[in-house]
C-alpha cells in the first residue's frame, strides 16, 4: 500500500531541513534560532499526527509505505513504512522533541543554534530508524544518530563529558558493526535488504544463533542491558538535560524496537534457544541494577540506573513468550489471552511510558541543576518549602517511576509481571520485587531532595518553576496520567501488529 502523501518522509526530513536552517541562522540572534527550532519541532509533530489518526488498527500490514530505488545495484531501497509497533514510537519522538527544545530555551547559552540543530537533526534521524523497512536504510539512520548525540554530550555536557561521549560512541559503534555483517549475510540469503523479506527467511540454527548474537550486541548496548550498560550512567550524568531526555526517552527505545523488528521475527529458533540469556540479563537489570540505583548519590545517575532497571522489564516482556510456549505449547501460546501478547504489548507500553516518565524525571533534575548547579542528592533537602509547584510535580513523576497505579508506569510493569506468571512463578516474583526496590530508590531520593528541613541557603533561595518549565512538566504529567488511566488506545493500535509478530515468533524458521 503506497501512501498518497509522503508523511513519513516529511516527518524525517522536515526536522533535518529545520536543523540546517537553524544552523545557518548562526548565533548572532539566538531568539531567531530558538523560535525557528520550536516552529520546526511543532510543525513536525503536527505532520506526524496523521500517522496516528489515519492509522488502520485492523491490519498488521505496513502503512504509509514509501518505496523508491536508492542504490539499485545492491537492491537497497528507500523503503519506509510503519506498523503498530513503530508508529507510537515515532509519535513519542516528535512529541518529546518539542519539550527538549523548550527545556533548553534559556539554559543553553553556548552556541544555541548548533545545540538546537543537533536535536532537530537527531529527531529526523530517529524517526528514520523507526520507519525504515530497508536494512541498510535502517543501519544508516541507526548509526547517523550517533553523530549528533556525540556532539551534544561532548560540547554541552558536564565536567567529564569527553570521556563519557567517547565511551558512548565507541560502545554503540561496537555494538552495531557486527549487525552490519549480519545484515549483509542475510542479503545474500534473501536477495534483498527488505526487512520484511528477512522475516520470511529460512535460516539454519547455527546461522540464526550467530545472527542473533550480532543483533544482541547491537540492541543490548542500545537498550542497555546488563552487563553492557556502563556507558549509560556516564553519558547521562555528563549530558545536558536535553541530551539525557532524548537518550532515556527515545534512544533506549530504539534498542527495544530492534528486538521486535529484527531478533524475534528473524531468528525465532535462536531466540527460543537463548531466551534464558535475555531473561537472566533482564532480571539482573531489574533486581541488581535496582539495588545499584539505591546507593547513588547523584540524582541523574540514580535515574539512569532506574532507566536500565525499567528497560529490563521491556526485554523481559519481549522474551517471556518462549517461556510461555514451553509451558503451554506453541498452539495454545499463540491463542489470544495466553500472555504472550500481553508480555510484548506490556513491554511496548513500558517503553512509551518510560519515555514520558524518564524524560520528566531528567527535566526535574535539570530544573534543580539550573538553579543550584549540583546534582548531588546531599546538596538538597526541603525543596518543597521554596518550590511547592515543582515539588508536587516531581513527587508525581517519582510515583509514576515507582509504578503507582493510575500512572503509566504501572500499566506496563503490571502487564509484564502478569505475563511472566504464565511462564514461571520465579520470573514473576523477581520482576515483582521492582515494585519494592523501585519505590525504595525513587521515593527515598524524593524524600531526601524534596522533603525535610531546608538544607542550605541555596535551597532557601530557590525560586519556583517559571511558566516555561511548568508547561513542559505539566504537559508530560498529563501524558503520564492519560496513558496510566486509559492505555486502551495505545494497546489497540499495537494489537494487530503484535499478533502478526507472534505468528512469526511461533513458527520455526529452520529450513525444512
Amino acid at each position: 500500500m503506497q501512501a498518497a502523501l509522503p508523511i513519513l518522509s516529511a516527518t524525517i526530513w522536515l526536522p533535518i531541513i529545520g536543523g540546517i536552517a537553524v544552523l545557518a541562522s548562526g548565533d548572532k540572534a539566538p531568539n531567531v534560532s530558538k523560535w525557528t527550532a520550536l516552529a520546526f519541532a511543532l510543525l513536525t509533530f503536527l505532520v506526524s499526527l496523521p500517522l496516528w489518526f489515519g492509522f488502520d488498527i485492523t491490519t498488521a500490514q505496513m502503512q504509509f509505505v514509501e518505496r523508491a530505488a536508492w542504490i539499485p545495484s545492491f537492491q537497497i531501497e528507500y523503503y519506509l513504512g510503519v506498523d503498530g509497533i513503530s508508529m507510537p514510537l515515532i509519535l513519542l519522538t516528535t512529541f518529546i522533541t518539542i519539550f527538549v527544545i523548550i527545556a533548553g530555551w534559556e539554559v543553553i547559552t553556548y552556541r544555541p543554534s548548533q545545540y538546537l540543530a543537533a536535536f532537530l537533526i537527531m529527531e529526523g534521524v530517529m524517526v528514520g530508524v523507526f520507519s525504515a523497512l530497508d536494512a541498510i536504510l535502517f543501519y544508516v539512520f541507526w548509526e547517523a544518530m550517533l553523530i549528533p548525540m556525540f556532539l551534544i554530550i561532548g560540547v554541552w555536557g558536564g565536567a567529564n563529558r569527553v570521556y563519557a561521549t567517547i565511551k558512548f560512541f565507541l560502545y554503540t559503534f561496537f555494538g552495531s558493526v557486527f549487525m552490519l555483517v549480519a545484515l549483509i549475510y542475510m542479503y545474500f540469503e534473501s536477495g534483498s535488504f527488505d526487512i520484511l523479506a528477512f522475516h520470511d527467511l529460512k535460516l539454519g540454527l547455527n546461522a540464526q544463533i550467530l545472527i542473533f548474537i550480532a543483533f544482541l550486541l547491537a540492541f543490548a548496548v542500545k537498550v542497555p542491558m546488563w552487563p553492557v550498560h556502563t556507558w549509560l550512567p556516564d553519558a547521562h550524568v555528563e549530558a545536558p538535560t536535553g541530551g539525557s531526555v532524548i537518550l532515556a526517552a527515545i534512544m533506549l527505545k530504539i534498542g527495544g524496537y530492534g528486538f521486535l523488528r529484527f531478533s524475534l521475527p528473524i531468528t525465532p529458533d535462536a531466540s527460543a534457544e537463548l531466551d534464558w540469556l535475555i531473561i537472566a540479563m533482564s532480571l539482573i537489570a531489574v533486581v541488581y541494577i535496582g539495588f545499584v540505583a539505591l546507593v547513588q548519590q547523584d540524582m541523574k545517575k540514580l535515574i539512569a540506573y532506574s532507566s536500565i532497571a525499567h528497560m529490563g522489564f521491556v526485554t523481559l516482556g519481549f522474551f517471556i513468550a518462549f517461556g510461555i510456549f514451553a509451558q503451554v505449547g506453541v498452539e495454545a501460546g499463540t491463542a489470544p489471552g495466553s500472555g504472550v501478547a500481553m508480555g510484548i504489548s506490556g513491554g511496548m507500553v513500558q517503553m512509551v511510558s518510560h519515555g514520558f516518565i524518564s524524560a520528566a524525571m531528567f527535566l526535574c533534575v535539570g530544573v534543580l541543576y539550573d538553579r543550584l548547579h549540583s546534582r548531588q542528592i546531599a546538596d538538597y533537602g526541603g525543596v518543597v518549602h521554596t518550590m511547592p509547584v515543582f515539588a508536587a510535580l516531581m513527587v508525581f513523576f517519582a510515583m509514576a517511576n515507582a509504578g503507582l497505579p493510575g500512572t503509566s508506569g504501572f500499566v506496563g510493569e503490571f502487564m509484564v509481571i502478569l505475563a511472566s506468571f504464565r511462564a514461571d512463578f520465579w520470573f514473576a516474583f523477581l520482576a515483582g520485587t521492582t515494585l519494592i526496590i523501585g519505590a525504595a530508590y525513587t521515593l527515598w531520593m524524593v524524600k531526601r531532595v524534596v522533603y525535610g528541613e531546608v538544607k542550605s541557603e541555596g535551597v532557601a533561595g530557590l525560586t519556583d518553576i517559571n511558566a516555561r518549565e511548568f508547561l513542559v512538566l505539566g504537559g508530560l504529567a498529563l501524558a503520564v496520567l492519560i496513558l496510566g488511566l486509559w492505555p486502551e488506545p495505545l494497546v489497540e493500535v499495537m494489537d494487530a501488529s503484535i499478533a502478526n509478530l507472534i505468528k512469526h515468533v511461533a513458527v520455526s524458521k529452520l529450513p525444512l
Partner: protein
Amino acid sequence: MAFATTDLIPILPELVTLVTACTILLVDLFLKEEQKGVNHTLAILGLLAAIGATWVVGGGERQAVFDGSFVRDGMSDVLIGSTLLITLLTFVYSRDYLQSRGLLCGEYYALVLFAVLGMLVMISANSFLTVYLGLELLALSLYALVAFDRDSRAGAEAAMKYFVLGALGSGMLLYGISMIYGATGSIDLATVAKVVAAQGMGNKVLVFGLAFLVVGIGFKFGAVPFHMWVPDVYQGAPMPVVAFLGSVPKMAAFALAMRLLVDGLGPLHHDWQGMLVILAVLSMGLGNLVAVAQTNIKRMLAYSTISHVGFLFLGVLAGTAHGYSVAMFYAVVYALMAAGAFGLLSLLSRDGVEAENLEDLKGLNERDPWYAAIMAILMFSMAGVPPTVGFMAKLMVLEAVVRIDLVWVALVAVFFSIIGAFYYIRVVKYMYFDKPVTEAPVVLSGGARVAISVNGLAVLLLGLFPAVLLGICQAAFL
C-alpha cells in the same frame, strides 16, 4: 611497427598533461617573483583541458594502441578523470601555503604534473614495460616533491627514506616482472594472461614472480608489512605535497594492482587472493592500532591510509568484476576524503604555523564552525559512519567479501574499524570539545573556500546518493 596518427587520440589526456608541464617549466623562467601565480593558473587550466580531453576521448569501446602497450578502457576513463579532478583540488588547496612559504614556483607544478603523467601512463598501461615506465615517472617526481621544501630537514630525511624504500619496492616489482617474462616470454599483459592460463601453477618461476609482484604492489600501496615508509614520508613532506601524495596515487596504485594482477595474472587469482587477504588483514589491524597512539596528525592519517589500503584490498581480492568496481569506488572515495582532510590541514597551516599536531585543531569550531563541520564530515567518513560516503564504500567492500564466503575477513574488518573510529572521533573531540589555543579566525582565499566546501559536501552527498558514482564504477567493468 607502423605509427598511426590516430593512435595519438586515446592518449590526448596524457599529451595535454605533458604539454602543460613543459609549458610551465618554460614560462617559469620568464616570470618575476611576484608573478609566480601565473604558474598556478597555467597548471589549473592545463588540468581542466586534460579533464576535457578525457571527456572527449573517453567512453565507448576498449582501444589498444602503440602495439598493444597502451590501452584506454572503462577503468582508465574513470581513474584518469578522478586523478585529474582530485589533483585540481589539491592545487587549489596548496596555493596559499606555498605562497606564504615562498615555495610558489614552477617546479612544484611541473613535478606534480609529471607525477600525474606517470599515473596516467600507469593507469592506461597494457604491458609490463609501460607499467614500469609510468611507475618510475611517478615515483621520481614524488621523491623530489617530498624534499621540495629544501630548508626542511625532516623533508630531506623523508625523501631519502622514501627514495631508498621506493627503489627497493621498484626493484622487487621489476624482479617479479623479469621472472614472469621468463616464464611466459612476453611483456604484453594480454599475452601473459593467455600463457599463464595455459600453464597454470605448475611453473615455479611464475609463482616466484607472482610473489615478488605482490610485494612490489604492497610497497607502492604502503600495505603492511611494506608500509614502513608511509608515516615518515607523510610527516616529513610539506602539507600540500601530502595532500597530493596521500590521495591521488592510491588510485594509481589500484590501477597498478588491477593491470598486473587482474589483466596480467588473472588466471592465478586463486593464488594472489590468499596473499592479498594477509596484506589486507595486517594493514587493517596494524594501521588502525598504531594510529591510535599518534599525536601528529599527519602520522595518524598515514596509519589511517594504511588501514584504508587494507579495506581497498578486500574489493580487489574478491576477484570478480563486482569486487573490482567497488574497490575502484573505494579508491576514488578515499582519494577524495584524503585530499579534503590534508587540504584542510594545509589551509589551516598558514603564516608559518603548521597544523601538524592534533592539538593544533583544538577549538576549530570556535574559530570557524564551517571548516570544523567539513573536517568532522571527513573524519566521520573515514571512520565509516553513515550517512557519509566512507560508510558506503566500506559497506560495498564488506559485501564483496561476504559474497565470496570470507565472512571472517569481514568480521575482522569491522572489528578494526571500531578501533579506527576512536582516533577519528578524537579529531572531532579536539575541534568541538576543547577550547582554542589561538582565537585567530581562519582566513582563506575564495577559491580554496569553495573547493574545500565542495569537497566536504561531496563526501556527504555521495554518501546520500552513492548510486551515480557506483554506476560509473560498475559500468567500467562490464
